[in-house]
């Protein structure tokens, strides 16, 4: 894997079944002043009340929030796609939401976030696929690498659910495969190598 810390402007994470534990491990270890924005699609039901966001925000040093439409993208904040909306990134460093049809039976969909992130950030985009039971995110991750960005996939051997990592690896064989704890270390190394 390249070490493109200085080039990365945005980190996008896609996660489905098993995501609560995975995100809990990954996000709670990040420092308050993390140098990058992180946008996350965690599949959840339409009437989800945002417990995940509250839980992560309370237990993390870094600020975690559900996105509202046209919210600016700032470093050091973890943005979570609200239930029943697609999350997209727009040129000019802000988010937009959409209520368009489900993609891969999902709204929010990981592909939708990743494809828009790749479009805007190109080689400065880091895409990470974590545990999950479906194939959402594989196409999006392919777009991230096609536009010169970096792809990381959680090791299916140790992920809580292997289907989503496997689908991503099949679609993007060049992706770096790491155990969850190593993904955490990698994120921390980005923080250090930038200085």
């Amino acid at each position, binding site marked *: 894997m390249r070490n493109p810390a200085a080039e990365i402007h945005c980190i996008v994470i896609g996660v489905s079944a098993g995501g609560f534990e995975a995100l809990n491990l990954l996000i709670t270890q990040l420092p308050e002043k993390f140098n990058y924005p992180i946008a996350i699609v965690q599949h959840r039901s339409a009437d989800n009340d945002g417990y995940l966001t509250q839980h992560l925000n309370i237990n993390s040093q870094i600020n975690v929030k559900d996105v509202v439409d046209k919210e600016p993208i700032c470093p050091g904040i973890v943005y979570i796609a609200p239930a029943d909306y697609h999350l997209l990134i727009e040129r000019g460093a802000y988010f937009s939401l*959409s209520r368009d049809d489900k993609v891969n039976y999902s709204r929010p969909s990981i592909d939708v976030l990743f494809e828009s992130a790749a479009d805007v950030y190109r080689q400065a985009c880091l895409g990470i696929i974590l545990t999950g039971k479906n194939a959402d995110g594989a196409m999006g991750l392919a777009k991230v690498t096609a536009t010169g960005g970096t792809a990381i996939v959680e090791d299916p051997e140790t992920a809580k659910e292997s289907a989503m990592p496997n689908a991503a690896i099949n679609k993007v064989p060049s992706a770096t495969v790491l155990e969850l704890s190593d993904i955490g270390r990698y994120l921390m190394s980005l923080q250090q190598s930038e200085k």
Partner: protein
Amino acid sequence: MELTEIADIEIDTLLDAIRRRYDYDFSNYARSSLKRRINGLLVKEKLDMPYQLIPRILYDEEVFNRFLSELSVTVTEMYREPEFFLNLVESIFPVLNTYQYFKIWHAGCATGEEAYSLAVLLKEAGLLNRAKIYATDYNNKSIDIAKQGIYSAENIEQSSKGYLKAGGKQRFSDHYSVHYEAIQFDDELKNAITFAYHNLVKDGVFGEMNLIICRNVFIYFDKDLQNHVLNLFNESAISKGFLCLGNKETIRFSILKDKFMTLSESNSIYRKKQ
């Protein structure tokens, strides 16, 4: 130049062609979701690239109509986000009740589900005969559906649950008749709503409104267009008039945010200051 930049030129050129040929301006729509919708149309038209749409749209109005449908169709249902409607009933209806006569503008009503949802609640509050509801959209096909007041009965159970959570006092079924697989809203509700064409991008002020509801429309606009439409709403509302946006939409990032005070952050309910 990178491929994604070239793709942007394609989209700009397509939008320019549409603007000059049909007088519909999509250039200030939120670009990422606009691109997804254009890609959706490309698949349906069996085309590969946005530029291939240009001659088809220029010379075939039917293709443009399909483009318009692809862009304007929104997922809408009755009592979506019922907590918003409950907030409306509890906080805004009492204020409307102080007027002998009041006007409501439901902007971007799509096929009308939310307009009827609102009319039902107004009726139960005894306010419907004093209300004039204007429900507008820029898609004439949607307006035609809305005028009929006939909807599939498929989701009626979900709607009934929403109705109760929204503060409905009777049974939802008191307000419509069932015909086979469809429901038809009562004439009293239909007659209280004027469905009309209005394009928020280019049409003007819709005057003297006590309440303006525009939900899940702003998400499809960029910040400039949001400002433009907020200005339109500000000029269309009476002093101390109410403005309701979708639950995940906010005026917080707009240059017009100081024109309104926030009554509910979570339900995006605002009130014009003066």
